[in-house]
């Protein structure tokens, strides 16, 4: 057997990494695999994505809270770091919880795992479509978020959250739906 660790650049996984997760080589992550814990991770991840996307509301919130510039900056920084770490951390744990099946290429999976992965992508695609639709409606009609107008708030948070959701949704769907992984 080749000792070379093949890197799947397109999928963002390595052969050894996926095989280690599939073969339970590291038992310390076993607690993540119960459906209840996976669903907690998915909920936290969704919450993190929603909070990230709401970063555009910060200027409005700062004005309404009458914060000094220094206090506002500290509060924003602490909140932003917490949200980013929570979201990135949840995503990392989520990938471990679903054994990277959502990201792994066909050659590292068996036929049932391929079917599970493909079904998860199918539902993720539909969910992502509805998220985009909701965001478009929010951007066009939402209060203080008229992003297509020059005086509108910064929409970069929504873009970041949406891109992150695009990457994480198949794992989130799989983690939520599957009884055993």
């Amino acid at each position, binding site marked *: 057997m080749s000792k070379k660790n093949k890197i799947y650049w397109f999928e963002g996984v390595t052969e050894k990494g996926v095989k280690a997760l*599939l073969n339970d080589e590291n038992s310390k992550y076993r607690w993540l695999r119960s459906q209840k814990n996976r669903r907690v991770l998915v909920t936290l991840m969704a919450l993190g994505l929603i909070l990230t996307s709401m970063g555009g509301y910060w200027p409005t919130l700062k004005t309404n809270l009458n914060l000094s510039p220094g206090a506002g900056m500290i509060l924003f920084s602490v909140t932003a770091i917490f949200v980013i770490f929570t979201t990135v951390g949840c995503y990392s744990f989520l990938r471990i919880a679903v054994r990277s099946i959502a990201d792994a290429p066909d050659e590292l*999976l*068996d*036929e*049932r*795992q391929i*079917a*599970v992965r493909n*079904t998860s992508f199918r539902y993720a695609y539909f969910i992502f479509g509805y998220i985009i639709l909701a965001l478009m409606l929010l951007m066009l009609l939402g209060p203080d978020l008229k992003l297509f107008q020059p005086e509108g708030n910064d929409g970069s948070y929504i873009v970041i959250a949406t891109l992150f959701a695009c990457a994480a949704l198949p794992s989130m769907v799989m983690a939520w*739906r599957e009884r*055993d*992984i």
Partner: protein
Amino acid sequence: MLFSMSRNPEEPVYNRIEEARAALGLSRQELADKAGVHYQTIGYLEREEYSPSLVLAIRIAKSLNQEVSELFSLTPFKKGK
């Protein structure tokens, strides 16, 4: 079932994998290694929550020294048979 993993949810595939595996004294992991699948896939098959492809059905039958028709059926197996 809306999210069924069966290839044809209207017509489940019944099997005697668990019985045949136990008769040979194989664990799920050992059978999975022989058939080239993950051990949880064997669990899904034994619970009849997943219907295998023909290739996998043949590989499992071969691993258990049985014919495909002895191991898989479109009608439930009679107990003890």
